[in-house]
């Protein structure tokens, strides 16, 4: 006998939010604090960094010493998920590649992210006016600035005021001082003509005024594991858990949303989901539906929410949903500083975000590619983890021993053991993160032939880099080599050339994917209006990175937070005016 029945509830929430990351978390926080009765659905388990973080564990406390066997970024990393999820496939079209990273947990990917918190600049919102490429946003930096300011004050960010044209300053806590290798980077970069300024990261380098639940950073450098004292920004610790304390936010975890439900009038009525706990189907009602499931997952949800009123998927009369997918470009180079061999030992863990970085410093008029990139730097005396001593045979033949004589590369025994000590803490690395142009032909859509283990049709990706991104990667490599040379470093990673697109990472690898449900003033060319409200369905909103028209080289999170706060305040206003 089959026992199939969709479990419905008679309760109607003021709002249901799908997803608990930066976008969903912020919406939940703002709306619950405004007194709305809010339901949040999260596809993964509950995660409270205070209890569930693997912070302060030593390498030897992992049987694999931190190797990334079950977690892509290592055994202590706070992402429950990865590039591939068991039973939740995605496919690609025309032999193109897009790698999709998903974290299924309360707080989503904000539990492990790099906390690099950059505002988009005036030219990022209106880039079309500068170079004629892609489209302008329907809003400007000035529209978003008040919300960036509020996010800075509410969540906390360190940095320095620099008065750079397209790198707007925020309201900052003091930045962490540079590590030794970073002092060499600053010196080398200056010689190479590359600007270096203090990093901008959402880590509490001082107490956050007015907040008693979070504590100042104690400098373990492990933000990627999430922070037990809430010293950095995770949506779980800083937004969702505090919002639950208002009594207005209910969170249901392990709830995989299947579709947004709509009524005969075409408006959203709620969502249906499958519970991973009992594999039963549920339906919940809400006056407003807010998607914050991640750029691609929210697009998937809309495309899977077909009805008589919305035959091409919800909010998709323009046919734009899924299109204009874009992820930051990325390329990197690594090496070591011979002058740091046999260096003095001390604790230089620092913060787990960037201590310094290079904002884009050049004028595109003199370059053969559009837009730009910023550079993040790494290195130092970090906790040895799986693989961090690998490949000594590629290093120890390059430098003279303590006796001044060159050694044969490789080896074994007491001499080798000492080489590991000598090279410890000498490494230096740099990674570029650049603007990719949003293109209609880079997209995700529904694969007609494939469903996941819950029976939900999956995404199929089509994504190709163009000359613009490849030339940008080439420029990154030339810059990196120049900085390495000027700081007296020895490059150890392979010099990437045209055969590998200059080390340009595959789309999706930088995990900054945005743009799949873009906003705009014209309903024929966009799915959402400038408040991220669906043109076709006025009680449907999107608060993750999907509404982005065009990214800058800036990591997306700070803008997601600001836009989600802006949309949430708009929802409160519209409710007061009885418009929704």
């Amino acid at each position: 006998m089959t026992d199939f029945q969709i479990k419905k509830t008679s309760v109607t929430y003021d709002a249901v939010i799908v997803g608990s990351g930066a976008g969903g978390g912020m919406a939940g926080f703002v709306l619950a604090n405004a007194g709305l009765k809010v339901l949040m659905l999260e596809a993964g388990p509950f995660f409270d960094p205070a209890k569930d973080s693997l912070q302060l564990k030593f390498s030897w406390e992992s049987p694999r010493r931190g190797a990334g066997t079950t977690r892509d970024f290592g055994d202590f990393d706070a992402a429950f998920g990865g590039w591939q999820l068991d039973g939740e496939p995605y496919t690609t079209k025309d032999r193109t590649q897009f790698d999709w990273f998903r974290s299924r947990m309360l707080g989503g990917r904000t539990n492990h992210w790099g906390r690099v918190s950059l505002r988009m600049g005036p030219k990022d919102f209106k880039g079309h006016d500068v170079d004629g490429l892609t489209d302008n946003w329907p809003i400007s930096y000035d529209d978003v600035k008040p919300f960036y300011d509020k996010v800075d004050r509410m969540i906390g960010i360190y940095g320095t005021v620099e008065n750079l044209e397209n790198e707007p300053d925020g309201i900052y806590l003091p930045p962490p001082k540079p590590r030794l290798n970073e002092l060499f980077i600053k010196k080398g970069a200056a010689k190479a003509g590359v600007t270096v300024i203090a990093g901008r990261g959402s880590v509490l380098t001082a107490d956050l005024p007015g907040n008693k639940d979070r504590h100042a950073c104690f400098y373990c450098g492990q933000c990627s594991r999430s922070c037990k004292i809430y010293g950095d920004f995770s949506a779980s610790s800083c937004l969702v858990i505090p919002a639950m304390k208002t009594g207005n936010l209910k969170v249901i975890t392990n709830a995989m949303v299947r579709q947004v439900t709509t009524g005969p009038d075409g408006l959203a009525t709620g969502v249906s989901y499958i519970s991973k706990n009992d594999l039963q189907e549920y339906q919940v009602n809400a006056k407003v539906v807010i998607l914050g499931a991640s750029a691609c997952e929210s697009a998937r949800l809309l495309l899977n929410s077909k009805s008589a009123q919305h035959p091409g998927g919800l909010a998709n009369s323009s046919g734009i949903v899924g299109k204009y997918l874009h992820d930051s470009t990325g390329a990197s180079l690594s090496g070591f500083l011979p002058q740091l061999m046999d260096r003095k030992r001390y604790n230089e863990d620092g913060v787990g975000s960037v201590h310094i970085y290079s904002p884009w410093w050049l004028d595109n008029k003199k370059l053969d590619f559009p837009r730009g990139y910023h550079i993040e730097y790494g290195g130092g005396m970090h906790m040895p983890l799986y693989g961090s001593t690998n490949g000594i045979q590629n290093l120890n033949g390059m430098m003279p021993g303590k006796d001044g004589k060159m050694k044969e590369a490789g080896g074994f025994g007491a001499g080798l053991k000492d080489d590991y000590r000598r090279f410890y803490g000498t490494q230096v690395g740099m990674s570029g993160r650049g603007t990719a142009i949003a293109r209609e032909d880079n997209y995700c859509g529904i694969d007609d032939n494939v469903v996941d283990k819950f029976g939900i049709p999956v995404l199929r990706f089509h994504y190709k880099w163009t000359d613009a991104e490849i030339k940008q990667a080439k420029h990154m490599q030339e810059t990196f080599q120049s900085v390495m040379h000027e700081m007296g470093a020895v490059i150890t990673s392979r010099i990437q050339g045209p055969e590998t697109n200059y080390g340009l990472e595959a789309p999706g690898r930088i995990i900054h994917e945005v743009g799949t449900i873009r906003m705009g003033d014209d309903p024929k060319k966009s799915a959402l209006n400038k408040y991220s409200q669906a043109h076709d369905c006025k009680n449907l909103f999107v608060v993750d990175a999907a509404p982005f028209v065009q990214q800058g080289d800036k990591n997306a999170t700070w803008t997601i937070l600001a836009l989600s706060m802006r949309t949430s305040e708009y929802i409160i206003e519209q409710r007061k005016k009885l418009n929704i």
Partner: protein
Amino acid sequence: MNRRESLKAIGLTSLSAAMLLETDIGEAQTVPQKHTVPPVDEEGRQPFEIERDKKLHAEKFFTAHEMATIAVLADIIIPRDAKSGSASDAKVPDFIEFMVKDIPENKTPMRGGLKWLDIQCQSRYNKNFVECSHPQQIEMVTEIAYPQKAKPEMRQGVAFFNRMRDLTATGFFTSKIGLADIGYMGNAPGKWEGVPKDVLKQYGFDS
């Protein structure tokens, strides 16, 4: 805030103490013949990870002969010296046994590499590697430990030894002994005040 206070503030003292104790006991006991299953840490782990670790710990991949060979090789690569103990003091062979199960791509290269080594030693010295004299073992290892000067017919041995050296170094320098040896001083709550003055001076950043 000192380390103890910080740990206490985040509720880690009892836990860490238990772990230290557990490891100390583990290192004091020597029961080489018995396959002991280490406890699986469940805090902050996903259910599938806990199950997977339990399963891997219960499996045994290497034979006693292979483990003996690994132990000799590991101690040739990282011997005891004036500063710290050897690879086997840091239980590197157990770590390697775990890693070939955890990352199964290691299985064939490791098993095949160990066999390759025995075949070489049999044709040279009429003995398996572990049964060779120490000078013979060093002579053999020298043939495969230096990638740039190794003879072409030793290439497979070089590839095996590179892998073995990487696994041994990871196993050693991520152990308690190894972390102390290499001088890692972090993972200790405190305040980062920048590069110490004497170090700034040493590298000319004090002006």
